[in-house]
Each structure stands twice: as structure tokens, then as C-alpha cells.
């Protein structure tokens, strides 16, 4: 897979300025500012309802912003949305393949929709990418879940887009298939395809994204490389303490009195930035580990990570 040559290195592939999208009383996207430079993979990380999918729909012209400015490459949206879509590939959260139709026809239909000149060559390339060449004449409903996700990805890339939008690409998949898809996506990133990937899986963002934008309530509340975000919002180390609720409450109160941030972590509590503790607020039996993006995510959004 090769991508179209870049005319301006690091010029924004995507620009959103003050984008607002309301659905009745609900403001799904609330003054969103976001730049995605060409050639990077940006992970849009946020809990359900943060506005990630609406942002994706704004970019594909399937939702029209109530306010703000949106550009994809040189195209202003929504007016120039059709031209913008010609340069992007979209892999949706929900499987919307034609299930009764063969694998190769699924690819050929989208090659035509994207006006690819050599449909046959695009289909062969898609089959190779999805590793489905030997299943080309099978109907999609005969494929496994992993094969279908690979086909969805190949369909989104059938026209060699400059920009790829991945909306929760591995949601609901088992770990083996998820790892398989990560390898495919990582290959695209390495080859220079600009990727905007919404996810609520921390590990996915950590593994694939050059930069992560944490979204909550329709806005980006933090952005940077994963290591920068961790250093800025979670320090070096997190201490996890397990025990009965009374003890956890006691430890929590002590840590918070030292100005440390404490968050629930399943059956435990996690004391973020525990290396800063000087006054014995961290119990001896605490499990000390390097801070992670999950600590950042939970601290910033108040949501449990997946």
C-alpha cells in the first residue's frame, strides 16, 4: 500500500475550529478545536458519549456543524464535503458490509464509488491487504468476525486515501483479532497514511497513536504524545492499594491530604503520581507501577477505562 504524495509536510489534514453540533438539547460536540497534521496517527480517546463518533460524522459530511469551521485538506465542509470524501477512507464502528454479496464484489462496489480507474487492480490489492484472496468468491456472511473487520478496513483503503478515519476499529472484537487489526493499522501508519482513530480502548491508543487527544463532553481536554500526557497528568508512578473498603477510604483520605490524586481502579484505588508522596501516605503493601495513559484518562474524564 502506498499513499498519495504529500505536498506540504505536516500541513493539517484535518482542522476543526470551534465546531459545535447539537442534537436537540444535547450538545454532542461543543466548540471542538482539533488539528491533525498529515502523516500522523491521532488517537481520539474518550468515554462513550464524548462526541468522538459525531466528530467523525462531521468529517464525512453526514452531520452538519451548527457552528465553527471544518476543513479536510484544502476543502471546507460541508460545502466541499464530496471532494473531501474522495480523499478519505472510512472504517465504521458498525459492520455495514453487504452480507449476501461476495468479498470481491464488496470491494469492487466501493472502488467504483470512489471512481478508481482500475477497479480490478484495486480489488486485488484489497483482497491481499485483507488476506482474503482465497475467499474472494464467498459471501460475506460466510466469513468470521475477524475476516469481516479486515475486509472493512480494506474497503476503506480501496482508493488509496490520504486520510483514514477509523471509528472504534476494534470495538467488540476478541483480543486475538484486535491484535491482528492493530498490526494492519500500524503498517498503514508506518507507510505514512494520516489516521484519525477514535477509540475508548487505552491500549489501542497507546500502541497505535503518535498523539492522543482526550475528549470529554464534546471537547478536547488534553492532547500530546502518550508519554507527554502521562508525565503532565499522571507523573512517573502510580501506586495501587487493595483491601477492604474501610481501609481504602482511610488510605485515600491520607493521600488526598497530601495533595495526591486518587481514583478508583476496580477493586483497588490508584494513587496517581505516588512518587511525590513524602509523608508515608503510600502503604508498604501498595503495588507501585509506572504511570499509564489509563491513569491520565481516568483522571481527566472521571471514567473507568476499558
Amino acid at each position: 500500500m502506498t499513499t498519495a504524495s504529500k505536498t506540504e509536510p505536516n500541513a493539517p489534514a484535518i482542522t476543526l475550529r470551534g465546531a459545535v453540533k447539537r442534537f436537540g438539547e444535547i450538545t454532542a460536540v461543543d466548540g471542538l478545536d482539533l488539528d491533525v497534521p498529515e502523516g500522523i496517527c491521532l488517537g481520539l480517546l474518550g468515554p462513550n458519549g464524548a462526541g468522538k463518533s459525531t466528530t467523525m460524522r462531521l468529517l464525512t459530511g453526514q452531520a452538519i456543524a451548527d457552528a465553527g469551521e471544518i476543513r479536510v485538506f484544502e476543502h471546507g465542509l460541508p460545502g466541499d464535503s464530496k471532494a473531501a470524501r474522495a480523499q478519505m477512507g472510512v472504517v465504521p464502528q458498525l459492520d455495514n458490509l453487504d452480507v449476501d454479496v461476495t468479498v470481491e464484489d464488496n470491494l469492487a462496489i466501493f472502488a467504483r464509488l470512489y471512481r478508481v480507474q482500475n477497479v480490478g487492480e484495486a480489488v486485488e490489492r484489497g483482497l491481499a491487504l485483507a488476506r482474503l484472496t482465497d475467499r474472494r468468491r464467498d459471501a460475506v456472511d460466510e466469513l468470521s468476525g475477524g475476516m469481516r473487520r479486515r475486509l472493512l478496513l480494506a474497503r476503506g483503503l480501496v482508493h488509496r486515501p490520504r486520510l483514514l478515519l477509523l471509528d472504534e476499529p476494534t470495538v467488540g472484537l476478541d483480543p486475538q483479532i484486535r491484535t491482528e487489526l492493530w498490526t494492519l493499522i500500524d503498517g498503514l501508519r508506518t507507510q505514512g497514511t494520516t489516521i484519525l482513530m477514535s477509540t475508548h480502548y487505552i491500549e489501542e491508543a497507546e500502541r497505535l497513536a503518535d498523539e492522543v487527544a482526550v475528549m470529554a463532553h464534546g471537547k478536547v481536554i488534553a492532547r500530546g504524545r502518550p508519554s507527554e500526557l502521562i508525565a503532565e497528568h499522571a507523573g512517573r508512578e502510580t501506586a495501587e492499594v487493595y483491601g477492604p473498603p474501610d481501609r481504602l477510604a482511610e488510605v485515600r483520605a491520607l493521600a488526598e491530604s497530601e495533595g495526591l490524586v486518587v481514583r478508583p481502579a476496580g477493586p483497588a484505588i490508584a494513587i496517581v503520581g505516588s512518587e511525590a508522596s513524602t509523608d508515608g501516605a503510600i502503604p508498604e503493601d501498595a503495588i507501585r507501577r509506572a504511570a499509564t495513559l489509563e491513569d491520565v484518562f481516568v483522571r481527566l474524564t472521571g471514567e473507568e477505562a476499558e
Partner: protein
Amino acid sequence: MIGLRRKGVGGINEVKRLEPAVIAGVMSREVANFRTYWKGTTFSSVLEPIVYLLAFGVGLGSTLINGVDGLSYVEFVGTGMVATAVIFSSALPAMFGTFVKERFQNTYDAILAAPVDVEELVTAEMLWIGIRAGFYGCFPLLVAMAFGLEPAFGMLLVPIFCFFTALGFAAFGITVAASVQKIDQFNYVTTLVITPLFLVAGTFFPINQLPEGVQVAANFNPLYQLVELVRAAAFGLEATDLIRFAALVAFAVVLWRVAVRRMTTRLID
């Protein structure tokens, strides 16, 4: 709706409004799907007129009705049933197909994420249904020939009449699908709109036996105009048939714009 001309990028041709290549692309999806279910559709399209002609044409025709307006009852029903075939292979597939693709299969989400606009999507869906109904609309005529209807050169126009009528009813079906919230609501449309249109079309009995008000109303029924055109094609066209044909084309054009508007409201947040 946008009308654009852009230089091609990376093997992509110009992007503009109502592109034939894009419309063909959307239709190719329908064709690929049709290949998986054409046998069932064709079977019912052939069998249905046979059953109706046996029941009404031969049954009623040989026992109760000698003839209608100078035609044998088989000729009358055989030509009239073209309209039945057209509405049932256009309005209903458009209603159910559009709703299922939009609500359950998320097909339109996939298509509209590509450089395809709602106008192209609706146009392609209508054209495909129109072509299909133009083809299947001829089946009752062919079956009626087996029951004694004399072939005529004018009958070669029947697929064209069926095509334009089906375009209008496809747009009607798409509009309905884009307007309802639940699939059950189609029951109101079939009972209150489709069944009356189908019954008051002069298919099984001439409308000149109906009350005067109903006769006037029937003139606004596209199916009645189609029935009259098909009978004219089979037994002799007249200049006034051009007006009927123009009315069917106008019906298709007006409903096309309505369908595009309703689908845009439905598909674009």
C-alpha cells in the same frame, strides 16, 4: 446538495453533481445483491399473473363477464395487470428496501462516507427499481399472450411506460421510508394509499362504472394512466396518450425531488 468540479487526485476522477459513474456504482451494488435473490423475484413475477389470469380472466371471464369495453376479460385483465406488477415491484421494494438499508444494514452510512451525495444515492435507487419494474411489468403481458392476447408492435413501448411509472412509485416508496419511524407504519401506507390506487386503476373493472367523483379522482392515479397507456399500446395508441405519458414523467420528476429532500433530512444530521 453540492455541485463540484475538482481535479482528480490519486487516480480519482472529477467530482461533480449527479455523476453517471457514481450512480452506476450505487446501482452496481443493487445488481450484485439482485444476483443473490433474482430467482425468487422472477418466480413470483411469472406465477402471480398466471394465478390472477386463471382466477379472474378465465374464471370470472368465462362465467360472469363476457367482455369489457369491447375486450375479452382476459385481454382486459392481462393488460391491466401490468400496473399491478409495476406498483408491487416498485413502491413496496422501495419502502422496505430503503428502510432496511437505512435502519438495519447501515448501508447508506457506508455509501455516503464515500464521495456520493444523497441526490445520487436516491437517483440510483430509483433508476434500478425503474429498470427492474420495467422488465417485470412486461411479464403479465407475456402471460396474457399465452392466454390469447394478440401481440402488437405498440407493446414494445410498455417497458418504457412501466419504467417511468416505477420511477415515480420508487420515489414514493423512498419518501415513505424516509418519513416513518417504525416498519409497522408501512401498514397504513399500503392500506390507505397503495391498495386504493391498485383497485381504482381500471385493472379488474372499468372505472366508468364507479361514481363520478371517483372517476375524476382516478384520473390523478398514475396507475390508471399506466393501465390506459398499456391498453392503448396493445389495441391502438392515440395522440392523447402523449399527455398521459407526460403526466407519468412529471409524476416521476416531482416525486424524485421530494424523495431527495426527505432522504437528505433523514440521512444527514
